[in-house]
């Protein structure tokens, strides 16, 4: 009897509600005609108790692409010409990041919880050190987010998750055409009263296939062969066109 109670306590409130997720696809293949993709996330909340009455259930879905280091540069006017002056290095910045929620972010999750779980875009960009010489690192960080948001690489989708009967939820995330290859991490947060009560993690694999994969691998692994092949193709095409035109003329 005591053991049973202990188990219940350990299981605690965190496990009272759990995510069961389905993905429309867990693989994205980049082919020659790839023009972006859409992923549908649908899931259900599993619970063994009646729905708590005190606070509404909220859902947050995040999708994060592979992180890479990069440099953000700012132009300044020097002698009438706009040139790159200040630069700031970001140690890690996700190549893709989407956050979808059931409502306005601050109503769904508290600031502390947001920080703890690295939920939003600014938290997933890391710039450790390397800020000397830059007067306002925050402006650089904002610029990175702004530029990537314009390219559809960083998305803030507040209110885009539909939750029905506090049990079934779904949302869709558009992946743009300029995707980086790799494993994309998916996280689903369940929150109540702006506190995270469950996290689900999954992965989506994005990779080039077919001719795209062949060319990409050849360029990376056999650059000399690749370079020679491009030149041979170019010469053959030039020669061929010339021959065809001559044949047409005579």
């Amino acid at each position, binding site marked *: 009897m005591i053991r049973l109670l202990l188990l219940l306590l350990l299981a605690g409130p965190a496990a009272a509600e759990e995510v069961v997720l389905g993905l429309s696809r867990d693989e994205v293949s980049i082919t020659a005609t790839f023009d972006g993709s859409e992923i549908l996330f649908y899931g259900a909340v599993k619970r063994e108790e009646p729905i708590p009455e005190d606070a509404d259930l909220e859902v947050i879905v995040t999708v994060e692409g592979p992180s890479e280091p990069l440099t953000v540069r700012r132009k300044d006017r020097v002698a009438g010409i*706009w040139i790159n002056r200040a*630069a700031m290095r970001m140690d890690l910045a996700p190549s893709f990041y989407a956050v979808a929620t059931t409502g306005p972010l601050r109503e769904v999750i508290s600031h502390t919880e947001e920080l703890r779980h690295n939920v939003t875009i600014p938290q997933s960009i890391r710039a450790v050190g390397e800020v000397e010489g830059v007067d306002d690192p925050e402006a650089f960080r904002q610029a990175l987010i*702004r*530029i990537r948001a314009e390219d559809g690489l960083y998305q803030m989708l507040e209110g885009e998750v539909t939750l029905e009967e506090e049990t079934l939820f779904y949302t869709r995330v558009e992946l743009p*055409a*300029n995707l980086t290859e790799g494993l994309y991490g998916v996280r689903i947060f369940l929150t109540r009263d702006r506190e995270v009560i469950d996290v689900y993690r999954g992965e989506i694999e994005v990779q080039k296939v077919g001719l795209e994969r062949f060319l990409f691998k050849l360029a990376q692994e056999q*650059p000399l062969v690749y*370079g020679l092949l491009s030149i041979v193709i170019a010469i053959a095409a030039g020669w*061929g066109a010339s021959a065809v035109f001559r044949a047409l003329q005579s």
Partner: protein
Amino acid sequence: MTIYLPIAEVSVNAFLLLGIGGVVGLLSGLFGVGGGFLITPLLFFVGIPPAVAVATSANQIVASSVSAVLAHFRRRNVDLRMGTVLMAGGLAGSTVGVWGFAILREMGQVDLFVSLCYVVFLGSVGALMFVESLNALRRASKPGAKVTRRRHGLAHTLPFKMKFRVSGLYISVIPPVLVGFSVGILSAVMGVGGGFIMVPAMIYLLHMPTKVVVGTSLFQIIFVTAYTTLLHATTNQTVDMMLAVILLLGGVVGAQLGTRMGARMRAEQLRILLAILVLAVCGKLAADLLIEPAELYSIDEQGVG
């Protein structure tokens, strides 16, 4: 119809790329320029990363130049000996240029330097050609006026003289090697074939007959751009074969049409058209440097480390 480019990692409308290739090929056949000075900015414009645009346009120039030079060969408008001398200088220049390019890239000033090069070279070459062609047209319209050309210059007094039969010249090899070398540097740094510098340099510095200038320039561009393509492919992996193939499909067709059109036009008219085009591209690039950009920040994914 959009197509995904494996190295550039973007998807672009295939017909747009075919069109760009076609227009540039036309210019290549018409003027004997590789068209890189036009294709590279156009590729930036449709969203291809600059490093890929520069490397791939070199590859596409190889194709359109081969296509165009064959037509010139048949009309015996290629000075092979002069082409080889220019090429020797060009390959050396290209090697130096790629080395300089790497240093600039580390400093994050490639864009600026490339733009400045374009503005300075296109501006001065364009203006020079424009004035010259206007004068030539005016002289040609006056009956009895004779075109006079300086037959003796530095090229005649320097040592290592060589006979260039097709061009009808007997000059020192030093000026052509130097011309080839400087154009080679520019071609690597600016991602162009260098025809727009080479053509006027051959006319005004080496005093070659206009008739053989285009073919000879194309001949030497093939080798320098092929070499540049290889360097970019091995050092940066930025040559996009898919992009190159689409561009050159449009390009080779355009080049053939251009060569045929060129054969029916007068040299002065050709030169004035090229001058206007060169000045237009120069003006656009100068405006970009002087007008405050809408986005002051830029993301550099390669310039790390």
